[in-house]
């Protein structure tokens, strides 16, 4: 009996010792790990590129860092690192900072125009490799230096990135903006055959931060930009399920506003001379304001739908013309449809093919609701 009891005791002691050793072994791995409070948390960062005197490329990457002081009082400060490659800016930045960085919790990533004109590829690579990064973070292009925009003070906000995030996320509600200006989408757009990247373009105007247009990319380089009005019709043909306003105005007293959402279909055919594309846009929505038609009935409703459809078709065709002759780009991702139908990896430059093919646009506007009545 005594022997068995002894055995049990030995087993107990052995187990406790083993547990202790395992605990120490694994705790040792954590020695260098700091609690999250001891890291710098950034709400966004920018990527700038400039050439120094000798003409070599240098990156300047400013981080907007949130500083927590006391209860609920937040400030932000900018810490910039400069180096010939993106990753090296981290070591340069660390020399100016009192804490370590946690890269990846960012809300936005700003590219300066100089960077995107030079090429996004090297920057995309470092983001792709970083497993901590928030792939759903928003990306956009800005005029001038990104540092100025990050430093811009918006009243009531701790830092400007939080404000900019809201701007981009909600731009889709009224201006036919796409919802997909995220890092993950950048990877997909840059790589897939027949697709081109488009990013929102912003600057500091005299009214504050403002989205002024869309930056058009060819491969990983920005080549052109369009303003918001033009971008509206481009997005309509390019993306699905967008929301925004359309209007007809005869004069300041007679006008009509329409709020709807779009659905897009593309038909693609190979003909002798090249490709033929037909873009069909269905827009369904509500009449918001109407002083154009005194009496709103079946006949005028049809008339209104037709005028709106014609208007959309006209403006879309205008854009297509400009795109084919001036930008020489496939901003509408038509190449993707051709590729899906006629085979991949044929080595065709879709920007060129689309610029030289026939593109027809058809719009069908439908009024769903008319509100609670006309005043």
């Amino acid at each position: 009996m005594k022997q068995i009891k002894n055995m049990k005791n030995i087993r107990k002691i052995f187990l406790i010792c083993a547990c202790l050793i395992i605990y120490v072994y694994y705790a040792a791995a954590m020695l260098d790990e700091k609690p999250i409070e001891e890291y710098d948390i950034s709400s966004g960062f920018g990527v700038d590129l400039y050439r120094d005197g000798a003409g070599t490329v240098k990156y300047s990457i400013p981080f907007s860092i949130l500083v927590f002081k006391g209860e609920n009082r937040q400030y932000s400060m900018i810490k910039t690192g400069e180096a010939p490659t993106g990753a090296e800016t981290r070591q340069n930045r660390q020399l100016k900072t009192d804490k370590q960085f946690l890269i990846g919790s960012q809300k936005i990533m700003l590219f300066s125009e100089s960077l995107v004109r030079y090429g996004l590829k090297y920057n995309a690579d470092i983001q792709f490799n970083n497993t901590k990064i928030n792939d759903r973070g928003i990306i956009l292009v800005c005029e001038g230096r990104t540092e100025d925009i990050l430093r811009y003070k918006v009243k009531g906000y701790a830092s400007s990135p939080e404000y900019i995030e809201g701007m981009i996320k909600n731009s889709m509600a009224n201006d036919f903006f796409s919802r997909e200006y995220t890092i993950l989408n950048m990877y997909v757009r840059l790589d897939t055959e027949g697709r081109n990247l488009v990013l929102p373009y912003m600057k500091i105007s005299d009214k504050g931060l403002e989205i002024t247009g869309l930056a058009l990319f060819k491969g990983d380089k920005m080549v052109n930009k369009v303003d918001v009005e033009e971008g509206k019709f481009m997005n309509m043909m390019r993306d699905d399920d967008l929301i925004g306003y359309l209007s007809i105005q005869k004069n300041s007293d007679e006008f009509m506003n329409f709020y709807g959402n779009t659905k897009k279909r593309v038909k693609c055919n190979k003909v002798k001379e090249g490709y033929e594309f037909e873009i069909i846009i269905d827009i369904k929505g509500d009449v918001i304001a109407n002083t154009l038609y005194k009496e709103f009935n079946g006949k005028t409703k049809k008339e209104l739908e037709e005028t709106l459809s014609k208007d959309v078709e006209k403006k879309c065709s205008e854009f297509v013309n400009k795109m084919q002759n001036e930008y020489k780009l496939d901003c509408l991702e038509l190449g993707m449809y051709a590729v899906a139908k006629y085979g991949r990896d044929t080595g065709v430059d879709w920007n060129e093919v689309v610029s030289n093919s026939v593109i027809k646009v058809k719009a069908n506007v439908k009024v769903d609701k008319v509100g609670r009545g006309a005043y």
Partner: protein
Amino acid sequence: MDKSKYHLLSDSEAVSILAGLMIGVGFLALPNQVAKDAKNDAGIATIIGGLYPLYFAMLSIYYCKKHPNEDILKLSKRYLGNIVGVICNILFMVQFLIYLAAGANGYKNVLITYATQFLSPMRVFIIVISIGAYVNFVGLKPLARINKIALFLTVIVTSILSMSLIRGRYLNLLPIFGTGITKIIKGSLESAYAYSGMEGVLLLYPLMKNKDKIAAISLKATALVIGVYSWIVFMSIYYLGYKVTVKTLWPVLLVTESADLPFINSFRLVFILFWSLNVLKLVANEYYAVVYIIQDTLKIKKSKHRNIIILGVIPIAIYLCLKLGEEVQRREILNYIVPKIILFNIIYASVIAIFIFINDKINKKSIG
């Protein structure tokens, strides 16, 4: 009698343990491997790759019909002679050892890359392999139950990933069969590693409760795995396009970012947490197969001696894990070894099936 009956696998447990032998860390990398050759037809290639487990499911049905109580180890000793049979059995065991190490190593790579950068590989291996060993101390029945839970989790997590359906483009999947049949078949060979593990059915069928239902069980497990695999490959290509799929080592973890769940900042870590159970059960399953074959070869009956084997496998497994190294190296090594293992498996299992067939014919003749 009752006690031994209790230790046998019920139908659902058998299905989940068979699926559990296949679904593991290979799942996360599968779209990348298949899309390298099969491009946008990777989904189809994955379905074609399912012929491999299907073949073993068929063999198990045939084996079980003729010899319901003898597994492949005993059959090989009977038909190939004691020496050749034992050598083949040991080779059969080595593959499970390799899969065990490959699973644990792959898990370490995912964990260190995505979640716990501060853990050294050794620390991960010790935990993962000791868990595998511990489950084997407890026995087959708990192992089957863990597999059952893991299978439920797999199905749930895979269906959450379907959220990417909202964001992707079906155009990424077109044109179907555009890459050409040869490329698709080449791609389907790449999926072989993900499907390997089904060989275990040849060890397990004598342990099932309802042997007359072996057809339903093994076909169900195969269909389930083919379904989950091809769904995840379709999903990745649909959402990312094949070019991005090829660029990332674990495409499935990139697709997880598409899931926009309320209150959760990144679904990726939640996914890895759930996935951990899946990998741990895979390691335990392979461990069980290794111990089972060693036990059979050395003719060990006592549980005390079995425990010694279980402990003895730990250092070997950890050594193999360390040899496999980081992810790119691991895949290179596996790409070299796995085709040979698969060839061996097919030949080994088919030859025994042929012997069974011939023997059966002779027996019938002598009776008739």
